[in-house]
Protein backbone atom coordinates (compact mmCIF):
# COMPACT_ATOMS: atom_id res chain seq x y z
CA UNK A 1 0.00 0.00 0.00
CA UNK A 2 2.43 2.57 -1.17
CA UNK A 3 1.48 6.17 -1.35
CA UNK A 4 -0.04 7.16 -4.64
CA UNK A 5 1.06 10.66 -5.47
CA UNK A 6 -0.56 12.55 -8.36
CA UNK A 7 2.50 11.82 -10.49
CA UNK A 8 2.32 8.14 -9.68
CA UNK A 9 -1.38 8.13 -10.42
CA UNK A 10 -0.65 9.51 -13.84
CA UNK A 11 1.84 6.71 -14.50
CA UNK A 12 -0.82 4.19 -13.48
CA UNK A 13 -3.34 5.84 -15.81
CA UNK A 14 -0.89 5.66 -18.72
CA UNK A 15 -0.06 2.05 -17.94
CA UNK A 16 -3.75 1.16 -17.74
CA UNK A 17 -4.33 2.83 -21.09
CA UNK A 18 -1.50 0.75 -22.56
CA UNK A 19 -3.05 -2.40 -21.12
CA UNK A 20 -6.47 -1.62 -22.56
CA UNK A 21 -4.88 -0.79 -25.90
CA UNK A 22 -3.02 -4.12 -25.82
CA UNK A 23 -6.26 -6.01 -25.19
CA UNK A 24 -7.87 -4.12 -28.06
CA UNK A 25 -4.92 -4.91 -30.32
CA UNK A 26 -5.02 -8.60 -29.38
CA UNK A 27 -8.76 -9.13 -29.46
CA UNK A 28 -10.12 -6.74 -32.06
CA UNK A 29 -8.88 -8.77 -35.06
CA UNK A 30 -10.31 -11.95 -33.51
CA UNK A 31 -13.71 -10.46 -32.78
CA UNK A 32 -13.79 -8.77 -36.14
CA UNK A 33 -13.14 -12.03 -37.98
CA UNK A 34 -15.82 -13.77 -35.92
CA UNK A 35 -18.20 -10.99 -36.89
CA UNK A 36 -17.22 -11.26 -40.54
CA UNK A 37 -17.79 -15.02 -40.50
CA UNK A 38 -21.50 -14.33 -40.02
CA UNK A 39 -21.98 -11.88 -42.88
CA UNK A 40 -22.40 -12.21 -46.60
CA UNK A 41 -20.61 -9.00 -47.55
CA UNK A 42 -17.25 -9.96 -46.09
CA UNK A 43 -15.20 -7.27 -47.79
CA UNK A 44 -16.98 -4.29 -46.26
CA UNK A 45 -19.42 -5.73 -43.74
CA UNK A 46 -21.24 -2.49 -42.90
CA UNK A 47 -24.16 -2.74 -42.65
CA UNK A 48 -24.00 -6.50 -42.15
CA UNK A 49 -26.06 -8.95 -44.18
CA UNK A 50 -26.09 -11.94 -41.90
CA UNK A 51 -25.68 -15.42 -43.26
CA UNK A 52 -24.73 -18.93 -42.22
CA UNK A 53 -23.35 -19.87 -45.59
CA UNK A 54 -19.65 -19.88 -44.64
CA UNK A 55 -20.37 -22.33 -41.86
CA UNK A 56 -22.50 -24.43 -44.19
CA UNK A 57 -19.78 -24.46 -46.80
CA UNK A 58 -17.19 -25.36 -44.19
CA UNK A 59 -19.47 -28.13 -42.98
CA UNK A 60 -19.65 -29.85 -46.36
CA UNK A 61 -15.90 -29.70 -47.01
CA UNK A 62 -14.74 -33.20 -46.20
CA UNK A 63 -11.10 -32.08 -45.95
CA UNK A 64 -11.94 -30.01 -42.93
CA UNK A 65 -13.66 -32.92 -41.24
CA UNK A 66 -10.63 -35.10 -41.71
CA UNK A 67 -8.32 -32.28 -40.72
CA UNK A 68 -10.29 -31.56 -37.58
CA UNK A 69 -10.22 -35.21 -36.60
CA UNK A 70 -6.48 -35.49 -37.25
CA UNK A 71 -5.73 -32.31 -35.31
CA UNK A 72 -7.80 -33.68 -32.46
CA UNK A 73 -5.73 -36.88 -32.45
CA UNK A 74 -2.45 -34.95 -32.55
CA UNK A 75 -3.68 -32.73 -29.73
CA UNK A 76 -4.76 -35.60 -27.50
CA UNK A 77 -1.64 -37.65 -28.15
CA UNK A 78 0.66 -34.70 -27.53
CA UNK A 79 -1.29 -33.59 -24.47
CA UNK A 80 -1.10 -37.03 -22.89
CA UNK A 81 2.60 -37.60 -23.59
CA UNK A 82 3.71 -34.09 -22.67
CA UNK A 83 1.77 -33.87 -19.42
CA UNK A 84 2.94 -37.27 -18.19
CA UNK A 85 6.60 -36.60 -19.02
CA UNK A 86 6.38 -33.11 -17.59
CA UNK A 87 4.66 -34.14 -14.35
CA UNK A 88 7.17 -36.89 -13.71
CA UNK A 89 10.09 -34.59 -14.49
CA UNK A 90 8.79 -31.75 -12.35
CA UNK A 91 8.25 -34.05 -9.38
CA UNK A 92 11.70 -35.56 -9.78
CA UNK A 93 13.41 -32.20 -10.07
CA UNK A 94 11.67 -30.60 -7.13
CA UNK A 95 11.59 -33.52 -4.75
CA UNK A 96 15.13 -34.86 -5.02
CA UNK A 97 18.05 -32.52 -4.52
CA UNK A 98 20.21 -34.10 -7.20
CA UNK A 99 23.24 -32.16 -8.44
CA UNK A 100 21.97 -32.79 -11.96
CA UNK A 101 18.82 -30.74 -11.42
CA UNK A 102 20.10 -27.71 -13.27
CA UNK A 103 21.13 -29.71 -16.33
CA UNK A 104 17.76 -31.42 -16.53
CA UNK A 105 15.85 -28.19 -16.04
CA UNK A 106 17.76 -26.58 -18.91
CA UNK A 107 17.12 -29.63 -21.08
CA UNK A 108 13.40 -29.58 -20.38
CA UNK A 109 13.14 -25.91 -21.23
CA UNK A 110 15.43 -26.03 -24.25
CA UNK A 111 12.66 -26.67 -26.85
CA UNK A 112 11.35 -23.19 -26.04
CA UNK A 113 14.53 -21.78 -27.52
CA UNK A 114 14.43 -23.75 -30.75
CA UNK A 115 12.36 -22.22 -33.53
CA UNK A 116 9.25 -24.25 -34.35
CA UNK A 117 10.12 -24.56 -38.01
CA UNK A 118 13.50 -26.00 -37.05
CA UNK A 119 11.86 -28.67 -34.91
CA UNK A 120 9.56 -29.36 -37.85
CA UNK A 121 12.17 -29.72 -40.58
CA UNK A 122 14.71 -31.55 -38.45
CA UNK A 123 12.08 -34.01 -37.34
CA UNK A 124 10.95 -34.53 -40.93
CA UNK A 125 14.49 -35.12 -42.13
CA UNK A 126 15.23 -37.43 -39.23
CA UNK A 127 12.18 -39.59 -39.88
CA UNK A 128 12.54 -39.59 -43.64
CA UNK A 129 16.25 -40.03 -44.09
CA UNK A 130 17.40 -41.77 -40.95
CA UNK A 131 14.47 -43.87 -39.83
CA UNK A 132 13.12 -44.21 -43.37
CA UNK A 133 9.57 -43.40 -42.30
CA UNK A 134 7.11 -41.14 -44.03
CA UNK A 135 5.57 -38.46 -41.86
CA UNK A 136 2.29 -39.48 -40.23
CA UNK A 137 0.20 -38.73 -37.15
CA UNK A 138 2.67 -40.55 -34.90
CA UNK A 139 5.63 -38.50 -35.98
CA UNK A 140 3.51 -35.35 -35.70
CA UNK A 141 2.64 -36.26 -32.11
CA UNK A 142 6.25 -37.04 -31.26
CA UNK A 143 7.68 -33.79 -32.60
CA UNK A 144 4.88 -31.67 -31.19
CA UNK A 145 5.49 -33.27 -27.81
CA UNK A 146 9.02 -31.83 -27.66
CA UNK A 147 7.80 -28.24 -27.63
CA UNK A 148 4.61 -28.95 -25.68
CA UNK A 149 6.72 -30.68 -23.04
CA UNK A 150 8.38 -27.38 -22.15
CA UNK A 151 5.08 -25.59 -21.74
CA UNK A 152 3.59 -28.47 -19.75
CA UNK A 153 6.72 -28.52 -17.58
CA UNK A 154 6.38 -24.81 -16.84
CA UNK A 155 2.68 -25.13 -15.99
CA UNK A 156 3.28 -27.97 -13.54
CA UNK A 157 6.44 -26.42 -12.11
CA UNK A 158 4.53 -23.22 -11.41
CA UNK A 159 2.20 -25.04 -9.07
CA UNK A 160 4.60 -27.63 -7.71
CA UNK A 161 7.08 -25.07 -6.43
CA UNK A 162 4.41 -24.15 -3.92
CA UNK A 163 3.94 -27.75 -2.88
CA UNK A 164 5.40 -28.56 0.49
CA UNK A 165 7.29 -31.83 0.20
CA UNK A 166 7.22 -32.18 3.96
CA UNK A 167 3.65 -33.35 3.44
CA UNK A 168 5.14 -36.42 1.80
CA UNK A 169 7.51 -36.86 4.69
CA UNK A 170 4.60 -36.55 7.08
CA UNK A 171 2.71 -39.22 5.14
CA UNK A 172 5.75 -41.49 5.30
CA UNK A 173 6.17 -40.93 9.02
CA UNK A 174 2.60 -42.14 9.38
CA UNK A 175 3.48 -45.28 7.47
CA UNK A 176 2.73 -44.59 3.81
CA UNK A 177 5.09 -46.19 1.28
CA UNK A 178 6.28 -43.93 -1.55
CA UNK A 179 3.78 -45.26 -4.09
CA UNK A 180 0.93 -44.97 -1.61
CA UNK A 181 2.16 -41.55 -0.67
CA UNK A 182 1.98 -40.46 -4.31
CA UNK A 183 -1.64 -41.64 -4.66
CA UNK A 184 -2.80 -40.33 -1.31
CA UNK A 185 -0.94 -37.04 -1.02
CA UNK A 186 0.91 -35.87 -4.11
CA UNK A 187 -1.52 -36.67 -6.91
CA UNK A 188 -4.64 -35.23 -5.27
CA UNK A 189 -2.69 -32.01 -4.79
CA UNK A 190 -1.17 -31.64 -8.22
CA UNK A 191 -3.85 -33.01 -10.56
CA UNK A 192 -5.25 -29.59 -11.49
CA UNK A 193 -1.86 -28.54 -12.80
CA UNK A 194 -1.40 -31.83 -14.67
CA UNK A 195 -4.79 -31.32 -16.26
CA UNK A 196 -3.77 -27.74 -17.05
CA UNK A 197 -0.57 -29.01 -18.65
CA UNK A 198 -2.58 -31.49 -20.71
CA UNK A 199 -4.97 -28.82 -21.97
CA UNK A 200 -2.18 -26.36 -22.78
CA UNK A 201 -0.21 -28.97 -24.74
CA UNK A 202 -3.41 -30.15 -26.39
CA UNK A 203 -4.30 -26.69 -27.66
CA UNK A 204 -0.74 -25.95 -28.78
CA UNK A 205 -0.46 -29.18 -30.77
CA UNK A 206 -3.99 -28.91 -32.15
CA UNK A 207 -3.23 -25.51 -33.65
CA UNK A 208 0.42 -26.00 -34.46
CA UNK A 209 1.52 -25.30 -38.00
CA UNK A 210 5.33 -24.97 -38.09
CA UNK A 211 6.06 -28.37 -36.59
CA UNK A 212 3.02 -30.30 -37.77
CA UNK A 213 3.25 -29.13 -41.38
CA UNK A 214 6.62 -30.82 -41.79
CA UNK A 215 6.19 -33.75 -39.45
CA UNK A 216 2.78 -34.96 -40.54
CA UNK A 217 3.62 -35.76 -44.15
CA UNK A 218 0.68 -35.67 -46.54
CA UNK A 219 -2.00 -36.08 -43.89
CA UNK A 220 -4.29 -33.04 -43.56
CA UNK A 221 -4.72 -31.23 -40.26
CA UNK A 222 -6.68 -28.06 -39.62
CA UNK A 223 -3.71 -25.66 -39.57
CA UNK A 224 -2.09 -27.23 -42.64
CA UNK A 225 -5.35 -27.02 -44.58
CA UNK A 226 -5.76 -23.42 -43.48
CA UNK A 227 -2.18 -22.71 -44.55
CA UNK A 228 -2.85 -24.28 -47.94
CA UNK A 229 -6.08 -22.37 -48.39
CA UNK A 230 -4.53 -19.10 -47.34
CA UNK A 231 -1.76 -19.53 -49.91
CA UNK A 232 -4.36 -19.44 -52.66
CA UNK A 233 -5.99 -16.30 -51.36
CA UNK A 234 -8.21 -15.90 -48.34
CA UNK A 235 -11.52 -17.78 -48.43
CA UNK A 236 -14.46 -16.80 -46.24
CA UNK A 237 -14.70 -20.40 -45.01
CA UNK A 238 -11.49 -19.65 -43.17
CA UNK A 239 -13.31 -16.96 -41.18
CA UNK A 240 -15.83 -19.53 -40.04
CA UNK A 241 -13.00 -21.89 -39.12
CA UNK A 242 -11.17 -19.15 -37.21
CA UNK A 243 -14.35 -18.30 -35.36
CA UNK A 244 -14.94 -21.91 -34.38
CA UNK A 245 -11.36 -22.57 -33.27
CA UNK A 246 -11.22 -19.35 -31.27
CA UNK A 247 -14.50 -20.26 -29.63
CA UNK A 248 -13.21 -23.71 -28.72
CA UNK A 249 -9.89 -22.41 -27.42
CA UNK A 250 -11.58 -19.89 -25.21
CA UNK A 251 -13.98 -22.51 -23.93
CA UNK A 252 -11.07 -24.75 -23.02
CA UNK A 253 -9.13 -21.90 -21.41
CA UNK A 254 -12.10 -20.81 -19.35
CA UNK A 255 -12.74 -24.38 -18.24
CA UNK A 256 -9.07 -24.72 -17.41
CA UNK A 257 -9.10 -21.51 -15.44
CA UNK A 258 -12.08 -22.52 -13.35
CA UNK A 259 -10.81 -26.06 -12.88
CA UNK A 260 -7.54 -24.74 -11.53
CA UNK A 261 -9.30 -22.22 -9.34
CA UNK A 262 -11.65 -24.86 -7.95
CA UNK A 263 -8.83 -27.36 -7.78
CA UNK A 264 -6.80 -24.99 -5.67
CA UNK A 265 -9.71 -24.32 -3.41
CA UNK A 266 -10.75 -27.90 -2.88
CA UNK A 267 -7.58 -29.89 -3.16
CA UNK A 268 -4.50 -27.84 -3.64
CA UNK A 269 -1.97 -26.78 -1.12
CA UNK A 270 -1.81 -23.04 -1.42
CA UNK A 271 1.52 -22.42 0.20
CA UNK A 272 2.06 -19.04 1.76
Amino acid at each position, binding site marked *: *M*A*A*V*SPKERMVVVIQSALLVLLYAFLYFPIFFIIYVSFVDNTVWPFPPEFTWQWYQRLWIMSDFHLGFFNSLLIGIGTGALASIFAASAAIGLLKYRSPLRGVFAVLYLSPLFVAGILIGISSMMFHRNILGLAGNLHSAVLSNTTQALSFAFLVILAQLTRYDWRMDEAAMVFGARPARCFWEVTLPTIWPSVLGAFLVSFILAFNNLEITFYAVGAIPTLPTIAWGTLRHGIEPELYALTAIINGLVFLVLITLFFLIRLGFVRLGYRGQ
Partner: protein
Amino acid sequence: MTEPALKLVQVEKSFDKVRAVDKVSLEVDTGEFFSLLGPSGSGKTTLLRVVAGLETPGNGTIHIGGRDVTRLPPYARGIGMVFQDFLLFPHKTVGENITFPLKMQRMPDDKQKEQLQWVLALVRMGGFAGRYPHQLSGGQKQRVALARGLVSRPDILLLDEPLANLDLELRKEMEVEMRRFQAELEIPFIYVTHNQEEALTLSSRMAVMHNGKFEQVGAKLDLYNAPKTRFVASFLGSPNHITGRIKSVDSGTAVLEWKGLQLKIPAYAGCRVGDTSDYFLKHERISIQAPAEAPPAEGDNRLKGTLRDIIFKGQHSAYFVVLENSEELVVNAATEMPDLKIRGPVEISWHPEAGDAFLSEET
Protein backbone atom coordinates in the same frame (compact mmCIF):
# COMPACT_ATOMS: atom_id res chain seq x y z
CA MET B 1 15.66 28.78 19.63
CA THR B 2 16.51 25.61 17.72
CA GLU B 3 13.92 23.75 15.75
CA PRO B 4 13.05 20.21 16.86
CA ALA B 5 14.48 17.49 14.60
CA LEU B 6 11.01 16.17 13.95
CA LYS B 7 7.75 17.95 14.47
CA LEU B 8 4.36 16.38 13.74
CA VAL B 9 1.20 18.43 14.02
CA GLN B 10 -2.19 16.73 14.00
CA VAL B 11 -1.10 14.04 11.54
CA GLU B 12 -3.87 11.83 10.23
CA LYS B 13 -3.85 8.83 7.90
CA SER B 14 -6.82 6.66 6.96
CA PHE B 15 -7.11 3.50 4.89
CA ASP B 16 -10.64 2.90 3.61
CA LYS B 17 -12.26 4.69 6.54
CA VAL B 18 -10.00 3.01 9.11
CA ARG B 19 -8.04 5.66 10.97
CA ALA B 20 -4.58 4.17 11.13
CA VAL B 21 -3.09 7.37 12.53
CA ASP B 22 -5.44 9.67 14.37
CA LYS B 23 -4.39 13.29 14.98
CA VAL B 24 -0.93 12.62 16.26
CA SER B 25 1.31 15.49 17.35
CA LEU B 26 4.89 15.04 18.44
CA GLU B 27 8.22 16.79 18.79
CA VAL B 28 11.52 14.97 18.87
CA ASP B 29 14.78 16.78 19.56
CA THR B 30 18.21 16.25 18.09
CA GLY B 31 20.05 13.59 20.02
CA GLU B 32 16.96 11.80 21.23
CA PHE B 33 16.38 8.09 20.96
CA PHE B 34 12.62 8.03 20.64
CA SER B 35 10.56 4.84 20.57
CA LEU B 36 7.10 4.33 19.20
CA LEU B 37 5.74 1.36 21.10
CA GLY B 38 2.47 -0.37 20.41
CA PRO B 39 0.87 -3.69 19.61
CA SER B 40 0.52 -4.70 15.97
CA GLY B 41 -2.18 -2.71 14.21
CA SER B 42 -1.74 0.26 16.51
CA GLY B 43 -0.63 2.49 13.62
CA LYS B 44 3.01 2.91 14.63
CA THR B 45 4.44 1.61 11.36
CA THR B 46 1.98 3.69 9.37
CA LEU B 47 3.06 6.76 11.30
CA LEU B 48 6.69 5.99 10.52
CA ARG B 49 5.88 5.55 6.83
CA VAL B 50 4.07 8.87 6.84
CA VAL B 51 7.19 10.50 8.30
CA ALA B 52 9.29 8.78 5.62
CA GLY B 53 6.95 10.00 2.89
CA LEU B 54 5.96 6.49 1.86
CA GLU B 55 2.38 7.33 2.80
CA THR B 56 0.78 10.71 2.29
CA PRO B 57 -0.99 12.01 5.39
CA GLY B 58 -4.67 12.90 5.04
CA ASN B 59 -4.17 15.89 7.32
CA GLY B 60 -1.53 17.54 9.41
CA THR B 61 2.02 18.72 8.82
CA ILE B 62 5.44 17.14 9.14
CA HIS B 63 8.61 19.14 9.73
CA ILE B 64 12.05 17.56 9.61
CA GLY B 65 14.92 19.75 10.79
CA GLY B 66 12.68 22.80 10.62
CA ARG B 67 11.70 22.15 7.00
CA ASP B 68 8.10 21.43 6.03
CA VAL B 69 8.27 18.09 4.21
CA THR B 70 4.56 17.24 4.30
CA ARG B 71 4.19 17.40 0.53
CA LEU B 72 7.67 16.19 -0.37
CA PRO B 73 8.26 12.73 -1.84
CA PRO B 74 10.47 10.37 0.21
CA TYR B 75 13.53 10.98 -1.96
CA ALA B 76 13.52 14.69 -1.17
CA ARG B 77 13.30 14.37 2.61
CA GLY B 78 16.92 13.64 3.48
CA ILE B 79 16.13 10.85 5.91
CA GLY B 80 17.70 7.54 6.71
CA MET B 81 15.64 4.44 7.30
CA VAL B 82 16.20 0.87 8.48
CA PHE B 83 13.57 -1.63 7.43
CA GLN B 84 12.22 -4.66 9.19
CA ASP B 85 13.56 -7.31 6.78
CA PHE B 86 16.76 -5.30 6.23
CA LEU B 87 15.77 -4.97 2.52
CA LEU B 88 19.31 -4.85 1.26
CA PHE B 89 19.54 -4.67 -2.54
CA PRO B 90 20.41 -8.26 -3.43
CA HIS B 91 22.24 -7.35 -6.63
CA LYS B 92 24.56 -4.82 -5.01
CA THR B 93 27.56 -5.46 -2.82
CA VAL B 94 27.68 -4.35 0.78
CA GLY B 95 29.69 -1.29 -0.28
CA GLU B 96 27.27 -0.40 -3.07
CA ASN B 97 24.33 -0.87 -0.76
CA ILE B 98 25.82 1.47 1.79
CA THR B 99 26.92 4.16 -0.66
CA PHE B 100 23.56 4.10 -2.46
CA PRO B 101 22.24 7.21 -0.65
CA LEU B 102 25.52 9.04 -1.37
CA LYS B 103 25.34 8.07 -5.03
CA MET B 104 21.83 9.48 -5.19
CA GLN B 105 23.17 12.73 -3.75
CA ARG B 106 25.85 12.74 -6.48
CA MET B 107 28.65 12.82 -3.97
CA PRO B 108 32.10 12.52 -5.62
CA ASP B 109 33.50 8.98 -5.64
CA ASP B 110 36.48 9.62 -3.37
CA LYS B 111 34.24 11.28 -0.82
CA GLN B 112 31.88 8.29 -1.04
CA LYS B 113 34.78 5.94 -0.33
CA GLU B 114 35.81 7.98 2.67
CA GLN B 115 32.30 7.91 4.09
CA LEU B 116 32.05 4.18 3.40
CA GLN B 117 35.26 3.44 5.31
CA TRP B 118 34.08 5.57 8.18
CA VAL B 119 30.68 3.93 8.47
CA LEU B 120 32.03 0.40 7.97
CA ALA B 121 34.39 1.02 10.87
CA LEU B 122 31.52 2.40 12.92
CA VAL B 123 29.36 -0.71 12.44
CA ARG B 124 32.45 -2.98 12.64
CA MET B 125 32.04 -4.40 9.17
CA GLY B 126 35.42 -3.38 7.73
CA GLY B 127 36.48 -5.86 5.04
CA PHE B 128 32.94 -6.78 4.05
CA ALA B 129 32.47 -4.12 1.38
CA GLY B 130 32.86 -6.57 -1.51
CA ARG B 131 30.44 -9.21 -0.22
CA TYR B 132 26.90 -9.70 -1.47
CA PRO B 133 23.98 -9.61 0.97
CA HIS B 134 23.20 -13.31 0.60
CA GLN B 135 26.70 -14.08 1.90
CA LEU B 136 25.99 -12.33 5.22
CA SER B 137 24.47 -13.57 8.45
CA GLY B 138 21.37 -11.94 9.89
CA GLY B 139 23.34 -9.79 12.30
CA GLN B 140 25.72 -8.64 9.56
CA LYS B 141 22.80 -7.73 7.30
CA GLN B 142 21.44 -5.70 10.16
CA ARG B 143 24.71 -3.81 10.51
CA VAL B 144 24.78 -3.10 6.78
CA ALA B 145 21.20 -1.86 6.88
CA LEU B 146 22.12 0.45 9.75
CA ALA B 147 25.21 1.64 7.91
CA ARG B 148 23.10 2.47 4.85
CA GLY B 149 20.76 4.45 7.04
CA LEU B 150 23.57 6.35 8.77
CA VAL B 151 26.10 6.89 6.00
CA SER B 152 24.73 10.19 4.76
CA ARG B 153 24.37 11.50 8.32
CA PRO B 154 20.68 12.16 7.79
CA ASP B 155 18.65 14.64 9.81
CA ILE B 156 16.77 11.75 11.29
CA LEU B 157 16.95 7.96 11.24
CA LEU B 158 13.73 5.96 11.11
CA LEU B 159 13.86 2.35 12.26
CA ASP B 160 10.95 -0.01 11.58
CA GLU B 161 11.21 -3.00 13.94
CA PRO B 162 14.80 -3.56 12.86
CA LEU B 163 15.46 -6.30 15.40
CA ALA B 164 12.24 -8.26 14.94
CA ASN B 165 13.86 -10.93 12.80
CA LEU B 166 16.97 -11.51 14.86
CA ASP B 167 17.36 -14.13 17.54
CA LEU B 168 17.51 -13.09 21.17
CA GLU B 169 21.28 -13.05 21.60
CA LEU B 170 21.89 -10.96 18.48
CA ARG B 171 19.11 -8.65 19.52
CA LYS B 172 20.81 -7.93 22.84
CA GLU B 173 24.08 -7.28 21.05
CA MET B 174 22.50 -4.97 18.50
CA GLU B 175 20.62 -3.06 21.19
CA VAL B 176 23.93 -2.10 22.74
CA GLU B 177 25.36 -1.20 19.33
CA MET B 178 22.43 1.00 18.40
CA ARG B 179 22.71 2.98 21.61
CA ARG B 180 26.38 3.48 20.79
CA PHE B 181 25.69 4.69 17.21
CA GLN B 182 23.02 7.03 18.39
CA ALA B 183 25.17 8.51 21.12
CA GLU B 184 28.20 8.91 18.86
CA LEU B 185 26.41 10.47 15.92
CA GLU B 186 23.77 12.43 17.81
CA ILE B 187 21.27 11.72 15.05
CA PRO B 188 17.75 11.40 16.41
CA PHE B 189 16.45 7.83 16.11
CA ILE B 190 12.73 7.17 15.72
CA TYR B 191 12.39 3.56 16.64
CA VAL B 192 9.21 1.59 16.01
CA THR B 193 8.73 -1.63 17.94
CA HIS B 194 6.09 -3.85 19.48
CA ASN B 195 8.64 -5.15 21.94
CA GLN B 196 8.43 -3.16 25.17
CA GLU B 197 11.70 -4.50 26.50
CA GLU B 198 13.46 -3.10 23.43
CA ALA B 199 11.75 0.24 23.79
CA LEU B 200 12.54 0.45 27.49
CA THR B 201 16.14 -0.59 26.99
CA LEU B 202 16.93 1.67 24.06
CA SER B 203 15.04 4.88 24.23
CA SER B 204 15.28 8.04 26.21
CA ARG B 205 11.69 9.00 25.53
CA MET B 206 8.88 6.98 24.11
CA ALA B 207 5.26 7.04 23.05
CA VAL B 208 2.78 4.23 23.52
CA MET B 209 0.42 3.99 20.59
CA HIS B 210 -2.98 2.36 20.54
CA ASN B 211 -5.71 2.49 17.89
CA GLY B 212 -3.84 5.17 15.95
CA LYS B 213 -3.52 7.51 18.92
CA PHE B 214 -0.79 8.34 21.38
CA GLU B 215 -1.85 7.03 24.77
CA GLN B 216 1.05 8.65 26.56
CA VAL B 217 4.30 10.33 25.58
CA GLY B 218 7.18 10.91 27.93
CA ALA B 219 10.39 9.73 29.52
CA LYS B 220 10.37 5.96 29.61
CA LEU B 221 10.49 5.68 33.38
CA ASP B 222 7.53 8.03 33.72
CA LEU B 223 5.51 5.81 31.45
CA TYR B 224 6.60 2.71 33.30
CA ASN B 225 6.12 4.04 36.81
CA ALA B 226 3.21 6.38 36.31
CA PRO B 227 1.01 5.19 33.47
CA LYS B 228 -1.67 7.75 32.76
CA THR B 229 -4.09 5.54 30.88
CA ARG B 230 -5.56 2.14 31.42
CA PHE B 231 -3.97 0.86 28.20
CA VAL B 232 -0.44 1.95 29.14
CA ALA B 233 -0.85 0.44 32.60
CA SER B 234 -2.06 -2.84 31.14
CA PHE B 235 0.65 -2.94 28.46
CA LEU B 236 3.93 -1.88 30.05
CA GLY B 237 5.45 -4.48 32.31
CA SER B 238 2.73 -7.06 31.50
CA PRO B 239 1.30 -6.70 35.02
CA ASN B 240 -1.15 -8.80 37.01
CA HIS B 241 -4.64 -7.74 36.03
CA ILE B 242 -7.26 -7.60 38.76
CA THR B 243 -10.86 -6.66 38.00
CA GLY B 244 -13.41 -6.01 40.73
CA ARG B 245 -16.06 -3.70 42.08
CA ILE B 246 -15.43 -0.63 44.27
CA LYS B 247 -16.87 -1.25 47.72
CA SER B 248 -15.97 1.98 49.43
CA VAL B 249 -14.01 5.13 48.74
CA ASP B 250 -12.11 6.98 51.42
CA SER B 251 -9.77 9.93 50.84
CA GLY B 252 -7.22 8.65 48.38
CA THR B 253 -7.80 4.94 48.85
CA ALA B 254 -10.67 2.73 47.79
CA VAL B 255 -11.53 -0.84 48.61
CA LEU B 256 -11.88 -3.25 45.71
CA GLU B 257 -13.99 -6.37 46.07
CA TRP B 258 -12.19 -9.06 44.03
CA LYS B 259 -13.94 -12.41 44.02
CA GLY B 260 -14.31 -12.59 47.74
CA LEU B 261 -11.11 -10.76 48.65
CA GLN B 262 -10.88 -7.10 49.57
CA LEU B 263 -7.94 -5.03 48.37
CA LYS B 264 -6.92 -1.48 49.08
CA ILE B 265 -6.27 0.42 45.88
CA PRO B 266 -5.50 4.04 45.07
CA ALA B 267 -8.70 5.96 44.34
CA TYR B 268 -8.58 7.31 40.80
CA ALA B 269 -10.30 10.53 39.81
CA GLY B 270 -14.07 10.12 39.77
CA CYS B 271 -13.94 6.82 41.58
CA ARG B 272 -17.43 5.81 42.76
CA VAL B 273 -18.82 2.98 44.84
CA GLY B 274 -20.16 0.24 42.57
CA ASP B 275 -17.83 0.97 39.66
CA THR B 276 -16.14 -1.94 37.95
CA SER B 277 -12.44 -1.20 38.10
CA ASP B 278 -9.17 -2.59 36.79
CA TYR B 279 -6.12 -2.73 38.99
CA PHE B 280 -2.75 -3.42 37.37
CA LEU B 281 0.01 -4.66 39.59
CA LYS B 282 3.53 -5.22 38.28
CA HIS B 283 5.11 -8.51 39.27
CA GLU B 284 8.15 -7.02 40.93
CA ARG B 285 6.13 -4.71 43.18
CA ILE B 286 4.79 -7.59 45.29
CA SER B 287 6.70 -9.03 48.24
CA ILE B 288 6.52 -12.71 48.96
CA GLN B 289 7.44 -14.55 52.18
CA ALA B 290 6.66 -17.56 54.27
CA PRO B 291 3.50 -16.93 56.37
CA ALA B 292 3.72 -14.56 59.36
CA GLU B 293 7.44 -14.01 59.42
CA ALA B 294 7.35 -10.27 59.71
CA PRO B 295 4.28 -8.11 59.91
CA PRO B 296 3.71 -6.03 56.80
CA ALA B 297 3.87 -2.28 56.81
CA GLU B 298 0.78 -0.44 57.92
CA GLY B 299 -1.84 -0.06 55.21
CA ASP B 300 -0.39 -2.71 52.90
CA ASN B 301 -2.45 -5.36 51.19
CA ARG B 302 -1.67 -8.76 52.63
CA LEU B 303 -2.95 -12.05 51.19
CA LYS B 304 -2.43 -15.70 51.98
CA GLY B 305 -1.98 -18.30 49.27
CA THR B 306 -0.30 -21.45 48.04
CA LEU B 307 2.79 -21.50 45.89
CA ARG B 308 1.93 -23.36 42.69
CA ASP B 309 5.21 -23.10 40.79
CA ILE B 310 8.51 -21.24 40.54
CA ILE B 311 10.04 -20.37 37.20
CA PHE B 312 13.72 -19.64 37.31
CA LYS B 313 14.77 -16.59 35.33
CA GLY B 314 18.29 -15.96 36.56
CA GLN B 315 18.69 -13.52 39.43
CA HIS B 316 14.94 -13.30 39.67
CA SER B 317 12.27 -15.95 39.59
CA ALA B 318 8.58 -15.84 38.88
CA TYR B 319 6.45 -17.19 41.74
CA PHE B 320 2.93 -18.30 40.88
CA VAL B 321 0.69 -17.88 43.88
CA VAL B 322 -2.85 -19.25 44.08
CA LEU B 323 -4.91 -17.16 46.47
CA GLU B 324 -7.80 -18.13 48.69
CA ASN B 325 -10.27 -17.09 45.99
CA SER B 326 -8.59 -19.52 43.51
CA GLU B 327 -7.18 -16.62 41.48
CA GLU B 328 -3.51 -16.55 40.63
CA LEU B 329 -0.99 -13.72 40.90
CA VAL B 330 2.58 -13.69 39.62
CA VAL B 331 5.31 -12.30 41.83
CA ASN B 332 8.86 -11.49 40.77
CA ALA B 333 11.36 -11.87 43.56
CA ALA B 334 14.90 -12.93 44.27
CA THR B 335 15.68 -16.50 43.32
CA GLU B 336 17.14 -17.39 46.72
CA MET B 337 14.06 -17.99 48.89
CA PRO B 338 14.86 -21.17 50.86
CA ASP B 339 11.69 -20.92 53.00
CA LEU B 340 9.35 -21.19 50.06
CA LYS B 341 8.32 -24.63 48.87
CA ILE B 342 6.16 -25.50 45.92
CA ARG B 343 2.64 -26.37 47.17
CA GLY B 344 3.58 -24.75 50.49
CA PRO B 345 1.78 -21.78 52.08
CA VAL B 346 2.99 -18.24 51.31
CA GLU B 347 2.02 -14.73 52.12
CA ILE B 348 2.19 -11.82 49.67
CA SER B 349 1.91 -8.12 50.33
CA TRP B 350 2.21 -4.79 48.58
CA HIS B 351 1.45 -1.14 49.07
CA PRO B 352 -1.78 -0.06 47.35
CA GLU B 353 0.06 2.72 45.49
CA ALA B 354 2.34 0.13 43.90
CA GLY B 355 -0.41 -0.68 41.42
CA ASP B 356 -2.47 1.49 39.10
CA ALA B 357 -6.26 1.58 39.16
CA PHE B 358 -8.58 2.67 36.40
CA LEU B 359 -12.27 2.56 35.63
CA SER B 360 -12.97 -0.53 33.49
CA GLU B 361 -13.74 0.03 29.87
CA GLU B 362 -17.25 -0.87 28.81
CA THR B 363 -17.15 -4.06 26.84
